[in-house]
Each structure stands twice: as structure tokens, then as C-alpha cells.
């Protein structure tokens, strides 16, 4: 895994750009720990100030310094994305590897369940949860719900990799050596699955953050927590784009685009690493 990263970093320009972009937003989110203002406070600075030396990102109509407010928003949003990715990885690895390794009846049953989850329209279900939970729908709860809905795509991919590993020589040796299936799966197979786990994790983050933004924009999350979604909600609530406080929309959008682009490039370059055919092709076109 580490050498994979090293190789990617060395030889893959997309991966490098992706790392840099993700690093930018991560550092930005990290700045929230140095914020002079608590995130939920309003009317602490003069509202509606455009970006300036004093307020780098300007101030919004709620009297918040957008720079510091967005650091919190990114911390919460990225943290949320990571948590969803982490939790859904656990489910997708378990399901994917079990189905791929055990095969047969187990595989069919798991993939049947998998297909059900794929077919569920997630958004109405999320809204239903919001409808029921209201303010109790904090970021962690939302993350758990999203994780429970966001694993099937990736489980299928992991399964296909695991399916290939089952027929490999070392698997047979391990079976002869008397290793139990769980150990084979997690000791022998997991390292091979990791690249695709990583790549799907990036894609999953884009997915979950996208939903967070959508829910937030509609006001269907806890509006007291600063996130990218709620930032846009408040901006919209104050007609930001129409009344000319454009920085309130443009800056978070630029930042989220940076984050998404970074994650996207990481996922793509990782995918390429997994599929050597497209890598060869890339070498070819590099002439």
C-alpha cells in the first residue's frame, strides 16, 4: 500500500495534483482550531463586507467572518465525509470479501441484498429520516445512516476483486495450510483489496458530501452546525447571489470544487493503478 502511494506520487501527475488539492482543504479545515470566533456565533463582525485584507473571504450577512466560518464548515463536512467513508468501508469490505471469498449461496444472497440497496432512492429516505429526527439528526447520526446506504456499489467492486483472488495460487496454499477463511480474507486478501478500497473511499466521500450539501441547501440538516451545506443554505436564505454578496457563495463553491477535484483525481489515479491496461495506454500516449 505504501509503495503504491510512493509510486503513484512519483509517476502520476493526477495523483500529485489530487494530493495537493486535498491537502489544501485539509489544512484549511485544520485552521478551525485557531479560529478567534466560535462557529455558531452570529453578528460578531460587520456584515456584508467583501473580501479584504482584514476579512480574507469577506463577511456574510449573518455577521460572521467567512474565512473562519468556512474552516469550521470544512472541518465538519470533511469529517463527515471521512466518517461515512470509514463506516461504509467496513460494511463494504465485509460484504464484498465474504461474498467474493465464500461464493456460492452466500455470494448470491449477499449480492441480492446488495442490489436492493442499490435500487433504493436514497434521498427521499434521508428526508424521511430528517422528517422524523429533526434536530436530533446530527452529523454522526447522518453519517451512520449514509454509511448504511452507501456501501453496495463498492461492495460489488471489492467482491469482484476478491473473486479473482480466490483462484490464485496463494489462496489454495493458505487453505492447505489450514488457515481459517477469516484469516485468509483479512491477512492474505485484504492487501490486494486495499487499492480499490482506497479509490472507492474517495468516490464515496464525494458522494456523501454531495448529499450533505444537497440536504443542507434544502435546510434538511441541523442548521446550527456549520457545514458546506448549511453555509449555502444561509447564503441562499439571505439571497446572497442576487443581492451581491457573491463571495458567500462563490468562495465555498470554489473550495468544495477543489476538495471534490482532489478526491476525484485521487480516485481516478488509484483506479488506473489498479487497472494496468489503462496505465500501459497512458505510457503509450505519453510519446
Amino acid at each position, binding site marked *: 500500500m505504501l509503495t503504491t502511494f510512493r509510486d503513484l506520487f512519483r509517476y502520476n501527475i493526477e495523483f500529485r495534483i489530487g494530493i495537493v488539492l486535498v491537502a489544501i482543504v485539509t489544512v484549511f479545515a485544520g485552521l478551525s482550531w485557531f479560529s478567534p470566533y466560535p462557529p455558531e456565533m452570529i453578528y460578531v463582525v460587520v456584515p456584508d463586507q467583501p473580501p479584504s485584507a482584514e476579512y480574507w473571504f469577506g463577511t456574510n450577512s449573518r455577521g460572521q467572518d467567512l474565512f473562519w466560518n468556512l474552516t469550521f464548515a470544512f472541518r465538519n463536512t470533511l469529517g463527515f465525509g471521512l466518517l461515512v467513508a470509514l463506516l461504509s468501508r467496513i460494511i463494504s469490505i465485509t460484504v464484498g470479501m465474504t461474498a467474493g471469498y465464500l461464493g456460492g449461496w452466500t455470494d448470491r444472497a449477499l449480492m*441480492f441484498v446488495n*442490489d*436492493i440497496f*442499490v*435500487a*433504493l*432512492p*436514497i*434521498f*427521499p*429516505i434521508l*428526508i*424521511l*429520516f*430528517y*422528517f*422524523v429526527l*429533526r434536530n436530533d439528526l446530527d452529523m454522526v447520526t447522518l453519517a451512520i445512516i449514509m454509511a448504511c446506504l452507501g456501501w453496495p*456499489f463498492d461492495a460489488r467492486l471489492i467482491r469482484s476483486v476478491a473473486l479473482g483472488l480466490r483462484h490464485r495460487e496463494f489462496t489454495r496454499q493458505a487453505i492447505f495450510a489450514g488457515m481459517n477463511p477469516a484469516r485468509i480474507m483479512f491477512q492474505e486478501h485484504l492487501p490486494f483489496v486495499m487499492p480499490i478500497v482506497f479509490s472507492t473511499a474517495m468516490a464515496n466521500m*464525494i458522494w456523501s458530501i*454531495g*448529499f450533505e*450539501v*444537497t440536504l443542507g*441547501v*434544502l435546510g*434538511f440538516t441541523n442548521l446550527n452546525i456549520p457545514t*458546506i451545506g448549511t453555509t*449555502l443554505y444561509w447564503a441562499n436564505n439571505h439571497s446572497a*447571489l*442576487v443581492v451581491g454578496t457573491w463571495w458567500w*457563495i462563490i468562495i465555498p*463553491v470554489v473550495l*468544495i*470544487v477543489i*476538495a*471534490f*477535484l482532489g478526491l*476525484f483525481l485521487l480516485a*481516478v489515479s488509484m*483506479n488506473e493503478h489498479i*487497472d494496468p*491496461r*489503462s496505465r500501459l*495506454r497512458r505510457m503509450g*500516449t505519453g510519446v
Partner: protein
Amino acid sequence: MRGYFLFAAKRFLQLAVVVFAGTSAAFLVAHFSPISPVETIIGRVSGQSSFSPTAVESLRATLTELFGYDQPLWQQYLNFWGRFIQGDLGPSLIAFPTPAMELVMRALPWTVGLLTVAIVISWILGNLLGGLAGYFQDNRILKSIGVVAIGIQPIPYYIIAFLLVILFGYVWPVMPISGGFAMSVRPAWSVDFVLSVLWHSLLPAFSLVVAGIGTWFFGMRALVSNIVTEDYVTYADLAGVDRRTVVGGYVMRNALVPQLTALAMALGGIFSGTIITEQVFNYPGLGSLLIRAVNGGDSGLVLAVSCVAVIAVASAIFIIDLLHPLLDPRVRVG
């Protein structure tokens, strides 16, 4: 043919299970709503004037019985299914006592129409461009389309839709930014009406296309760049098979199979986008209805919209699955 029936039967079973699981989940989640439909209705009915406590009490009793809230949960669940099978999901609360299903059915065609148009366009266009970009990897125009797509892809959908409103409604006000058709026409089988519907759906559909096309573009490009290395493509090239035949019949045609599967898998997600579209463009449809239901505390209607969404998406997937063997002969036997 028998193989196909077996295949279709299996898919149908899957459809049934999805609908069952999805609606059951929706029922259970909605059931735990702290907002009591009974109290919501009483609030709405009594909101406009003062109600005597006795009148409220008798109304409450009637409604409790109507909703069956005096029964145990499993009984309510069975009742739910009993009514559900007959296409009845109880009364809506924000338009009491109009059946929730009636409201949903009124909104459904708009959503389905808009989504179908948007999905078909973005799928075809995205796959076409992506396929060409994957095949002609050195083409400048296709390369720059790829760069633009990478730039647009991460923009949250809401922003794309809203920018279109600002751009075509404000800066350069040439497009309608709200409604399903113009106030000057009436719904009828007339050229004017159809054109008006088209004209009004253009901007919302375009926003969905812009947002959706990237996925197909990238997916197809990646698929094609792999498929061109397949033996049958090389072989056809060696045989001097016509370029267009190779691109169309060999490369794209084979890439379409996984892209069709991807379409089925993406439908649930695409449905989410339309909720925002309808919000931003004030377009009629399920999304607007859902938002109104949530804000109105109408658990019956929220449940109905969720169930219909589950059914609609699952059915769409089912239909796509049925198309699958037509595109991929290998599925037919299995």
C-alpha cells in the same frame, strides 16, 4: 426465450423485494415520526379559528380511528399493506382528506417527464462524447471537453441549477425560470401547449444534463480506452473494417453494456437531483411535493412520496434490466 423468461422472472422477484423492503423501511421510519398526523390535522383545521375543546376531542377521536393509531404496530403495518396494494396510502394531511396518492399521481408525470428527458439526453450525449474521447484520445476538442467536464463535475448541483437561473433568467433573461408551462396556454393536446412544456422544461432539463453528463463521459471514456485494446477491436482494425463500424459496432456497442448497468444503478441518485431542480426552477413534480410535505409536517404524504419513489426507481431499473439482454447477447442464456 425460456432463458429470457427465467431472467425476467428473477428480476421481477428482485423488484418485488426492493419495493417491499423499501416501503417497509419507509413505513417504519415514518411511524417513528414525533409529529402526529392527528395533531397536525387538528392544527390545520382549527388553526383559522377558535375551536372548542370538545370539538377538538371529537375530531381527535375520529382521526385516531381513521389512521388506526389505536391499534398495535403490527396491525397498522398489515393495514398499511392492505391499503398499499389497493394503491391507497391514506389521506394527505396538508390537503385533508384528499388521498395522498392522488397528489402524488398528479405530480409524478412531471418528474418522470423531466427526468426521462434529462437522463436520456445526458446518457446519450455523455456516452457519445465519452466514447469518442476514449477512442480519439489525441483529439483536441474532445480533450478540452474532458477538461471542462472535470471542472464542472465537482460543482454542487444546486449551484449549477442556480447559476443557470441567474444566467438565463436575470443576466440574459431569455428563458422562463418557473412553472411547467406558460400562463397563456392551457393543458391540451395542442402544439402550443406541447411547445410551452418543452420550452419550460429546457432549462431544468439542461441543468440536470450539465450535472449528469460528466459521469457518463468519464465512465464511457475509461471503458472505451480499455475496450480499444480488446482483441476483437484490434482484429477488426487489422481486417480494415470501416472506422465507423469499429467505433460504433465494436467499441461503443460493447461499452454500452456496462454503461446501461451503471444507468440502472445511478437512477436512485439522479432522482435526488430532481428535488433540487424543482425547488430552484419552481417546477411541478414529486420533489416540490416532498418538500411541501416535509415542511407541512405531512407524514402521510412524505410516506407516499417515498414509497412511490421507491417503486418508480425500482421499476425503471427493472425496465433497464429487461433491456439488458437486448444489448448483451451473453445475458440471454444465463
